[in-house]
């Protein structure tokens, strides 16, 4: 009995860890579509698209309209689909690079986002369009025209969703990629104040400029929507608030780190570690724009 009592908390702990991991993965996948914005819009569009398709085909009689020149029709639909796919790609890429999550800036993740947009739209098409054809004519009833129409509907819905989310991002005045890049580079540039000699007149001026860049960064990061971006904002504010309490000498030690010695000021060490971690994260986002 005692043994099982000992095992139980460990098992619970492992399950909780696993659940946390799964939760993080799920959030990461959802953020490839919502970019940290509310999921409600995705659900709204998803339901509306499904309803639109269902109603379109439920009340159209006959289901297929006779078309004279099939090749031109199919070619036009494929061309429009390609254009809509491009629209989806452009809007999704812009949203990806405007997040404060460097993972979303990677090409593979931008592609994954586009694929997820297409996948969601494909689910609507499969449920609302293909299933209706199968129900009425069987699986053999799916012809080339239906496949092309399916592709067309998929790209229409995915571009609608992408434009919709992009519009949401614009409506909350989310900073543009160029603003983010400039603010991050500006902050990194102004870190050089610590390199000036203590007697150099411009040292104070450079430090004040760095602190202004910090304040600007706090404001910029306030726009974070993704979980990584929100975490970066919160960690930066925590560090900035502590840093601001120090006199210039302490501020410099926090940025530069303490010299190698057997004994160290633990508080300074902790704040320096936080600074280095933030610097790495900011550099990571900043350098992701160079790729």
């Amino acid at each position: 009995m005692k043994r099982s009592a000992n095992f139980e908390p460990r098992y619970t702990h492992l399950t909780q860890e696993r659940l946390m991991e799964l939760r993080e993965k799920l959030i990461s996948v959802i953020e490839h579509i919502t970019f940290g914005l509310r999921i409600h819009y995705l659900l709204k569009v998803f339901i509306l698209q499904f309803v639109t398709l269902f109603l379109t085909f439920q009340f159209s009689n006959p289901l297929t309209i006779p078309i004279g020149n099939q090749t031109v029709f199919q070619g036009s639909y494929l061309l429009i689909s390609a254009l809509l796919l491009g629209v989806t790609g452009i809007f999704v890429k812009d949203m990806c690079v405007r997040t404060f999550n460097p993972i979303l800036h990677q090409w593979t993740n931008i592609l994954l986002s586009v694929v997820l947009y297409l996948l969601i739209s494909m689910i609507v098409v499969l449920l609302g369009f293909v299933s209706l054809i199968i129900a009425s004519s069987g699986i053999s009833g799916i012809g080339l025209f239906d496949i092309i129409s399916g592709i067309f509907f998929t790209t229409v819905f995915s571009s609608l969703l992408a434009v919709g989310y992009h519009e949401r991002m614009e409506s909350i005045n989310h900073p543009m990629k160029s603003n983010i890049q400039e603010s991050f580079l500006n902050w990194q540039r102004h870190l050089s104040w610590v390199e000036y000699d203590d007697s150099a007149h411009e040292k104070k001026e450079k430090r004040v400029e760095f602190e202004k860049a910090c304040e600007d960064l706090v404001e910029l990061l306030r726009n974070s929507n993704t979980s990584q971006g929100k975490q970066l904002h919160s960690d930066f504010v925590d560090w900035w608030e502590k840093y601001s309490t120090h006199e210039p000498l302490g501020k410099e030690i926090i940025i530069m780190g303490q010299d190698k010695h057997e004994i160290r000021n633990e508080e300074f060490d902790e704040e320096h570690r936080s600074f280095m971690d933030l610097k790495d994260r900011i550099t990571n986002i900043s350098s992701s724009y160079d790729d």
Partner: protein
Amino acid sequence: MIDRYNNLSDTVPHEEYIVCITESSTYKGHKFSSIIKEIKNRVPGDKLTLQEYYPPVEKSNDYDRLIQNSVWILNIDDCISSTDSGTLFKQEYLELQIFLKTRRYPDDAGVFLCVDDVTMTQKSKVKQTFPELTIADTKDMLVGIVLGHIADANPVSTRGQEKILSWNNDVCDTLGVP
């Protein structure tokens, strides 16, 4: 790096720095970090915070940096020359010896020496060389003299604010900070 204070309100709150010039991590069997912690915990009021740091030997002669600390603690055991080389301090601390001998530290700075395991002759040489500096023989004495100095430079009182302002701007004058 130090900013000039324009009026007394600039001194509240204030963070003072203690520079500990020591190669060993302990003094009289106590870790330097725990001695400083004890001092920090005994600072009255909430307007003054203390931060210490430990420069390596090669930076112990950085005058521009040293004068920005209102408290200097020197572990004499590390600085003093064990050979009869003609100088009291070791070669690497000679500049520091000159700073102390010529009183190149600000008037309101607290410079304290602590001795752990030096001979009586060495201790009396230190006393002769730096007659105006206080030498701590015990951990409690070191804590006491630092606290005594800080009590006078605590922005909880107007007198403390004046002392901080005077010390701060004295350092700015020396460094040429406008």
